[in-house]
């Protein structure tokens, strides 16, 4: 059964050319409360589920507000949200889940948002403000016109704690991040959510600046894999270090799917012969099509060549 709750789409508003906000209200009764940083599974099309963070103030449990960016590689998820949902549509969703909860720390909280990654951090800012916590939200976005939830931010009680960074790309991005993350103190925390290149940049700057791994809290969408057509040679690949999940359809290789999602893996022969793309595997019943790895390495299943090899089980977790 797709999602335990049914809601009605009360309002759809385009925040930017690519991002739309959705206000969902209960079809009956009230909505379960949620903590800042929570997300819900949404089922825009039967059999396809997507995770979206809840943007609104956790204290306001009359509705759930989502921000959805149109994704080029979507398996119908985001484009369905953008396409066939209208105001008044009924929608099945799951109860809120939270892998990105606020911790009670006495030090500073630095919220780093990259593009659509701002959605969970808005509800966090609201919660931190409510408890008079010392925090700053740094909103990195390509341009002023691509800033989402402008009214919500400017109209909030914590608008003075928000810093805007427009159109930054390496190396300038790294300089700005070094400035923000200078001099970490034991009780300080960083909450980080955004596209993988942004998250990689932040994590490397943070490590160099002396932040320990557990001081950097990442948003992981780790819902179970989306449902796939039975029998199809399809599976989901999860990049453990990036918290990214993508569906690998039967007609595409893992490398192609990763490239389309902006994850660059060095390749050379792209025929499973040269070993350039050998990648460590955490989980998955592998289907080795390469000529590079030895029989023992195939049996061990700790390495694979994503240019030609695939996965017989439905979820493949790569350690990248």
């Amino acid at each position, binding site marked *: 059964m797709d999602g335990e709750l049914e809601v009605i789409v009360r309002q759809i508003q385009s925040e930017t050319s690519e991002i739309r906000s959705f206000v969902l209200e209960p079809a009956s009764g009230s909505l379960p409360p949620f903590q800042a940083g929570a997300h819900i599974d949404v089922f825009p099309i039967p059999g396809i589920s997507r995770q979206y963070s809840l943007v609104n103030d956790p204290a306001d449990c009359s509705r759930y507000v989502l921000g959805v960016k149109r994704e080029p590689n979507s398996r119908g998820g985001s484009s369905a949200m953008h396409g066939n949902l209208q105001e008044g549509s009924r929608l099945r969703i799951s109860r809120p889940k939270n892998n990105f909860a606020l911790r009670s720390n006495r030090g500073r909280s630095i919220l780093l948002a990259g593009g659509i990654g701002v959605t969970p951090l808005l509800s966090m800012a609201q919660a931190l403000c409510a408890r008079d916590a010392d925090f700053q939200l740094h909103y990195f976005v390509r341009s002023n016109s691509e800033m989402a939830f402008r009214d919500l931010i400017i109209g909030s009680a914590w608008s003075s704690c928000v810093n805007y960074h427009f159109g930054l790309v390496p190396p300038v991005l790294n300089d700005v991040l070094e400035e923000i993350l200078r001099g970490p103190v034991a009780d300080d925390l960083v909450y980080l959510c955004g596209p993988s290149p942004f998250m990689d940049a932040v994590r490397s700057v943070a490590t160099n600046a002396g932040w320990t791994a557990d001081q950097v809290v990442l948003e992981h969408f780790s819902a179970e894999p989306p449902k796939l057509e039975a029998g199809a040679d399809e599976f989901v690949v999860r990049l453990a270090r990036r918290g990214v999940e993508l569906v690998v359809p039967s007609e595409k290789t893992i490398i192609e799917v990763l490239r389309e999602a902006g994850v660059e893996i*060095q390749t*050379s*022969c792209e*025929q*499973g*012969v*040269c*070993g*350039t793309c050998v990648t460590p595997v955490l989980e998955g019943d592998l289907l080795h099509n390469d*000529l*590079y790895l*030895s029989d023992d390495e195939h049996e061990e299943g700790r390495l694979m060549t994503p240019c030609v090899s695939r996965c017989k089980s439905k979820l493949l977790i790569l350690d990248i």
Partner: protein
Amino acid sequence: MVATTDTVARNEWVPCGWLGQIAIGTNLDTMIFGQPIRVARIAQDDYHVVELSDAGTEGRSLPVQTRYNCIFTTLGEPTRALPEISEFDEPDRRIVGCGSVGVSTCPYRLIENFLDLAHLCFIHKDILGDPEKSEVLAYKTEHRKEADEIWAVDCSFYQPAASKASTSGQMTKYIYRVMSPFSVMLYKTVNSDPSRNDAICVFIQPIGETQCLAYMPMALVDDVSTDGDIIEFQQSIFLQDRVILENQRPALLPLDPTYELPTRADASSIAYRRWLKAMNIQFGILEKQAA
């Protein structure tokens, strides 16, 4: 030229002359791994090899073995013995040597050329391959750990005139065996008796990092061809390859698979390069040059 200090290379047996090259009582000055040496023939089957200083004075003597129509020596303490090739001991075999041919490239380019199937129909057109039948069918490579050798098995290729004795084209079966970084051989089905294989070997004398001599001893089942015909066939094949070998850039072997892009037909070359990388050999390797 300065002698290499790479012990992995120095600890290998390499050829330094062929049987019959040196008249009794005379000697041959040559070089291995940049080290000048003198090969003296004391008697019919008695050879001495010594290092020569730059001034030409005789230094320490080196171990010597004569086998497979070649004189072998080594600069180090070999952990790998000369390979056992039983075909050479079979009484009805024609044991033929073709002298040696000089090539200006690193020894590994010769080994890879010998292992390569995809060039047969271009470089050896109408002899070992036909451009209309260029596909290289899948084959299997394996690293045989106990012998520490690289093998390629189930290799087959369409050949118009597979050997001196063959009269028409056929699918020829090959098995390749890389016995050391500087030696390789192939087992090729005998037309007249498919249960047996001809053994064709290449032993390389690395003179410098981009200069070597190739020796090609063979043990064949062929009572049709003359020695001259067999030698000429093998030399023609090698001289066709030599133009290619001397015009590959770089002359040193790159191990990084993104520098020279392989395809599936290059599986044995990839296994060979991976093996060279694992043994950390330095001599003649692009990435190991003094940075």
